[in-house]
């Protein structure tokens, strides 16, 4: 179980600046024709991921390295299926869990319990699955009675704890991560690190974008270096 195949993947972001986003200009262009119409067709694009190919199977732990803007995060997002490839293809088997933005979908006016459900839905769980997990999630978060309060009353560390507890409550086959997650105070962080380790070990494939050499050495067995959206080096890591 667990397979991730990427073939000549290209992700192009159109730059929709004001001129070509507005209907007025489209209409005016239609009327004036010629030069302007041409320039609006050649919309500038940012090629965030350029002809990337790789194939991962069970047991592979891929580390993505590269400067800011080299396309690591976009590649991770594309792997989660959010962006349709501009060209090329992407195949994945297994449950994909993305820990790129653990607090996505949380509502600050809603209570902790409601947020467990909201966040769970965002992770692709069904209502029933979340109901089964609610107890273990609230136990892990150690938030106790606070869970019945709106999370706007929480400290930012508490919100992150809750988000972390929900996000790591499902077993992933393919795990996508942008840097190692660290949450909460020293004591909670230790517990969180343990849980994350279990999740990483349980996942059959890991793709992790990182700037840390130490992390790369301790977690990954492959490394892929990216520059300007392209892969410039893909190699096995050996101790």
């Amino acid at each position, binding site marked *: 179980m667990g397979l991730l195949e990427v073939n000549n993947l*290209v992700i*192009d*972001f*159109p730059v*929709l600046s004001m001129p070509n*986003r*507005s*209907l*007025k200009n*489209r209409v005016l262009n239609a009327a004036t024709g010629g030069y302007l119409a041409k320039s609006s067709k050649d919309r500038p694009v940012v090629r965030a991921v350029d002809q990337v190919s790789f194939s991962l199977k069970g047991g592979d732990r891929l580390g993505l390295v590269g400067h800011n803007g080299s396309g690591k995060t976009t590649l991770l*997002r594309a792997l*989660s*299926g*959010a*962006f*349709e*490839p*501009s*060209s*090329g*293809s*992407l*195949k*994945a*088997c*297994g*449950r*994909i869990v*993305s820990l*790129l*933005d653990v607090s*996505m*979908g949380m*509502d600050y*006016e*809603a209570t902790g319990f*409601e947020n467990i*459900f*909201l966040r769970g*839905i*965002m*992770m*692709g769980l*069904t*209502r029933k699955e979340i109901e089964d997990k609610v107890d273990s999630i609230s136990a892990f978060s150690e938030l106790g009675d606070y869970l019945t309060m*709106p999370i706007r009353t929480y400290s930012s560390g508490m919100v992150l704890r809750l988000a972390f507890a929900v996000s790591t409550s499902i077993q992933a*086959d393919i795990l996508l991560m942008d840097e190692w997650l660290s949450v909460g105070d020293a004591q909670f962080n230790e517990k969180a690190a343990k849980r994350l380790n279990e999740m990483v070990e349980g996942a059959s494939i890991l793709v992790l974008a990182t700037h840390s050499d130490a992390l790369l050495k301790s977690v990954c067995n492959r490394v892929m270096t990216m520059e300007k959206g392209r892969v410039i080096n893909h190699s096995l890591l050996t101790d």
Partner: protein
Amino acid sequence: MSSRLNELNMDAQHRQFFPALVLAWQDIREGIAARDKWQMLGTQDIKQRYRRSVLGPFWLTLSTGIMVAALGFLYAELFHQPVAEYLPFVAVGMIVWLFVSSMINESCFVFSESERMIKQIKLPLTLYVCRMVWRNILVLLHNLVILIPVMFLVDKTDTLAWLSLPFAVCILAFNGIFTGIVLGILSTRYRDLPPIIASIIQVGFFLTPIMWKPEILASRAWFVKTNPFYHCIEIIRAPLLGGGIPLYSWAMVVVITAFTDLTGLVFLLRYRHRVAYWV
């Protein structure tokens, strides 16, 4: 369904006509099927709007009630109509209008309001549209409470024809889904569209027989008969006010539905893969 969720197969080749059609169809089917998701998100939207207020979502009922009562009494006087006849007419018309028009207005924002989700996870686009429609169904249900006292004024209502009402609400909601897909995609791409739609809707309110009765315009009946909003309202208003089931309006609504469904499918087919890039 879970097995499908666990498989991802994306290929730029899928943009050719037939694979794209299959994917568009899948999007609609899976989006509508993910009921627990859109119900939760839509309910949360309503809760969020009224959190920390004492009346909560019943503010919806109250504010619509106040508006209907004010309009009902004032315009009954202006149009020289008996309140017992005019007030129910305005009440039903207004409630259905609010349902239809806010679905259209909110259609423009279905994708931009879920930007963060769309850019992170793969879910059917139709799901975000269903969230908006569900939210408006909840508003409609709150507004329907107003009709309870109002219906006591109507003496010749047609209880048997009420059976058609759930179908009427369903077909309007169904239209909402497909209108949402079309307008949602268009306004994600062209940001001038929402204000254009909003002004059309505003004018539509005055051109549609909500405050005035269609009989007034008897000499220009075509003006009313060609107004799609009129038919959307009539399929609910007529049975409630003792006019039976309006077959002509139903036929028109079915035609409109066929048109919105087809347009929605074409838009999904052509632009589904672009939405995440545009939001």
